[in-house]
């Protein structure tokens, strides 16, 4: 009764997106008689700077049966508990957006309401002291979250800093074992069905014709199939996310690798610092209408803390997304379907999500409109909500030290974001949604971290006597500090976990599709 499955999949482009697609489709749809061909060219470099991840990648690897410790060894990964944002709200200010919630709920209301009340009388008190991953990150500690949900150390998750090109190679090894055929070559032209407009085949420069039933466009910013061939519109978000260039350069390791990413706001953009086991990834994302490439490079170099290991690479982009991620018989994955700067490490997540949705709505021969529409609806939804969250970082600022920050501070933001900011400022409430990557703890982290302190809070927070509240808050902070003090150093944890790589047991906790813990 089943319609015949699509049997020939052609993936255009290697790199992280291409090989994540190849590995996932070949593994998850094993025995579905799929012929999967990936075409890439060694002459075309990969962007390869998506090095900071979020906890969801653990779920992706787990579904593919990839052992976490092998993954860490293969990608020279370090652990990541969050991102530190420096100079974003104002110069001299810093906070960590953690992979975990703050404190514990009180009588059905979120912890931050208690903190808001407490902070009114203790203005020096920091919300971020009530977060295990923040304190652990700041101390350079790491341990797997506890699997006992009652434990204070159960209330966070973790991700990795990885060498993205090594991750692609790691996945390639597995994908080829799982039957993926790799073809070396560059695209010369694309053949389309005259009636439907569907893609029929990719013809390479050497004349090789790669026919397929379905195509995954992982060609990066070029979007060769989805954009150029199928003409899917690009929705430009640069009026809200004005950075359009990045310069990336690796440096030597300098000191113990931190278990968090650093994002430092500069004059016309921001700089990332991603510590791996063997080197540090650095980059400067900037708005080219505010500073020149040379000036951006000079600023990046000024802030590097070790010798450069390669020539800096310049990337050009426009923030936005394709109106449809799936058009005809082609799905764009990764940069081919949209670009959101890696401010919150969402690049690999969006690749992962597209793949998971693709498998969920896997195409069959015949009419795929229903599957396509649902896939596009869900992807659009995700992009839109991440977009708002990223804009928040730029807009929630007091900075007035450059043309760039003046623009960001005063720009008109999307109405959905405007309501969320105004609502939080007035009441302490974050309008939450059920589906989306960034939930209440993340919105609170960035808004409070960048200086949006509500003038009101849930009135139940006033029901505790001031002395009891102060005592409870102090005790919670002490418990967190004590718990973190017992954790191993970050590098010690990596060494220990990798030493156990061959063990049959899996010491790492089960993965979850959540930023904030391992249980949901």
């Amino acid at each position, binding site marked *: *009764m*089943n*319609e015949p*499955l699509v049997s020939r999949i052609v993936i255009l482009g290697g790199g992280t997106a291409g090989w994540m697609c190849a590995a996932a489709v070949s593994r*998850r*749809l*094993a*025995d*579905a008689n799929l012929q999967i061909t990936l075409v890439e060219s060694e002459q075309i470099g990969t962007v390869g700077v998506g090095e900071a991840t979020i906890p969801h990648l653990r779920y992706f690897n787990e579904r593919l049966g990839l052992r976490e410790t092998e993954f860490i060894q293969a990608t020279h990964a370090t652990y990541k508990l969050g991102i530190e944002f420096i100079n974003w709200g104002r110069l001299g200010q810093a906070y960590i957006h953690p992979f975990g919630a703050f404190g514990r709920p009180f*009588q*059905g*209301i979120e912890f931050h309401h208690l903190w808001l*009340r407490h902070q*009114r009388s203790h203005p020096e008190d920091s919300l971020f002291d009530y977060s295990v991953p923040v304190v652990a990150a700041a101390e350079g500690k790491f341990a797997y979250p506890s699997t006992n949900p009652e434990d204070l150390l159960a209330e966070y998750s973790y991700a990795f800093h990885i060498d993205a090109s090594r991750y692609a190679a790691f996945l390639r090894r597995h994908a080829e074992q799982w039957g993926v055929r790799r073809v070396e070559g560059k695209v010369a032209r694309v053949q389309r069905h005259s009636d439907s407009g569907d893609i029929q085949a990719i013809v390479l420069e050497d004349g090789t014709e790669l026919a397929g039933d379905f195509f995954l466009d992982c060609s990066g910013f070029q979007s060769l199939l989805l954009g150029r061939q199928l003409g899917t519109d690009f929705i430009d978000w640069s009026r809200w996310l004005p950075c359009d260039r990045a310069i990336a350069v690796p440096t030597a390791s300098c000191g113990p690798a931190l278990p968090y990413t650093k994002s430092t706001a500069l004059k016309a953009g921001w700089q990332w610092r991603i510590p791996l086991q063997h080197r540090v990834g650095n980059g400067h994302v900037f708005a080219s209408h505010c500073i020149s490439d040379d000036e951006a490079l000079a600023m990046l170099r000024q802030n590097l803390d070790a010798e450069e290991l390669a020539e800096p690479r310049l990337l050009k982009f426009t923030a936005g997304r394709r109106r449809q991620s799936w058009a005809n018989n082609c799905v764009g994955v990764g940069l081919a379907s949209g670009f959101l700067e890696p401010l919150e490490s969402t690049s690999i997540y969006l690749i992962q999500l597209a793949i998971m949705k693709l*498998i*969920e*709505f*896997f195409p*069959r021969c015949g009419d795929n409109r*229903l*599957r396509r*529409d*649902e896939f596009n*609806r*869900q992807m659009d939804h995700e992009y839109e909500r991440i977009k708002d969250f990223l804009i928040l970082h730029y807009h929630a600022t007091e900075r007035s030290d450059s043309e760039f920050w003046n623009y960001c501070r005063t720009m008109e933001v999307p109405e959905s974001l405007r*309501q969320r900011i*105004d*609502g939080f400022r*007035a*009441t*302490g*409430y974050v*309008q939450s*949604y*059920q*589906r989306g990557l960034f939930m209440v703890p993340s919105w609170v982290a960035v808004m409070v971290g960048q200086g949006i302190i509500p003038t*009101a*809070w*849930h*009135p*139940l927070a*006033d*029901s*505790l006597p001031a002395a009891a509240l102060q005592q409870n808050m102090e005790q919670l902070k002490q418990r967190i500090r004590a718990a973190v003090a017992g954790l191993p150093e970050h590098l010690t944890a990596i060494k220990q976990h990798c030493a156990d790589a061959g063990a049959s047991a899996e010491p790492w906790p089960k993965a979850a599709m959540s930023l904030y813990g391992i249980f949901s």
Partner: protein
Amino acid sequence: MDTPAIQQVVIVGRGYTPILTAVFLQKKWRAAPLGITIIQAGEYIDPPALSCVSSLRALHTELGLAEKDFVRKTGASFHLGTLYQFHNQFHNQFHSQFPNQLHNRIDSDPALPDFFLCEAPYGFNLKSIHFHHWFHGLVATEANARFDDFCLNALLAKAGRFSPASSRSNSVFAQVCHGYKFLTTEYARYLAGHLAPDTRVKDSRALEVQLTAEGKIKGAFLDNGEWIAGDLFIDCSGERLLKKAIPQVSGKSAGPNPPSWQEEEAAGDSLGPPSTSLTLGEGLLRIVIPLRGKVYRQDVSCESQSQWMRDAAPWQANCIALGAALWARPPLLIDSTHLLASALYRLHRLWPPTADLRVAAGFYNESTAEEAACIADSDSLHAWAAAGRRDEYLTEAAQHKLRLFASDGRLPRYDGETLTDDQWAALFFACGVVPRCSDPLIQNKDRTWAVNELKLMRQTLREAADRAPLHADFYRQQVLAPGA
């Protein structure tokens, strides 16, 4: 934040809704008590009997209302779900209008079989793939396989048996999920016993609502001339006594109250089965609740579906519509107690911290609208099934859900989703919508293995159901017996 913006709450309406609302607020605000006044005004609008899902149990637990005490004092019985019965007329229309959408099992069967709908899981997921995808494979080898044979609630209810959920996660009885059936007058009386002693309860045939210049409710005169003022007003009345005094901004006029209930004597076991029934056909939905020697019945026309939600902006100014002031829908999968509990939690989460209520109201209305849209999707599917599968009864999202499920067994999810995936899948199966394709993740070599697993699963569930006591025996031994 020294002086709370909301100190006096006025709740208007009769029946259990205003009292449950008051009890909820008093429990939640026990550390900073609110002044609460209940004005019993307007018509008594509650149905005589209610069947509810398990969210009322969860709410009771949170409010400290012990199950045994509640059941004993209200005479409630247990509720495992609803038997859906399809009127024959429906099938004729079904065949003539949708010949291409039919699954072969339905094609070969002139009557759509009864189907048990509940909130408990249907089957167990295998290899992290949802059960209903595997079930699809079983149907290929066993044309008469029933989806609800994999639901312990259904097996228990059909056999007139009952067991509460086991707390042991490895027990098959951990799957059981129950609510209650009860008389609403008894329930209101029971709840009244849990009101805080300082609750002011007033009775008034009429209200004269006074507004401030900004359009907020200042207070109301009772028919005896007494003036009741408040900061926040909650309208639970069928006549919308408060809401109708506020200029409507939503542009939607409130529809009528739901049709009345009929009451008949019932034969057989006086306790009744641990279930209810719903008959769908000829554009009607007939809800039947057997309870304590009687049968309570409501016939609802599908034509009225667009008016089942009465207010697109339930929170306006300082007035919130709950219960009958907001909903006029029949209890289809989701009942009024669930919607009330959901609204109360939402209200608690968004309790206004300042006298400017606009932010809280905006967030509240947005969240309610999302929930209402998802409820409307499932309601519209009921109307669609009862009215011979006429697409005009379906919401746009329900059409999308139906087509996607019929195609691949996929269940798109939206913000505010109330039904579980299992409930959606069961509802579609009940309506004869069976996916045409199986999940691509199910490999060919898995199918034989899966069929055997499913047969074993079904056998295990049947044996478990057979071990459970009869509903009446459980009730007598575990609820009524002294010292139980």
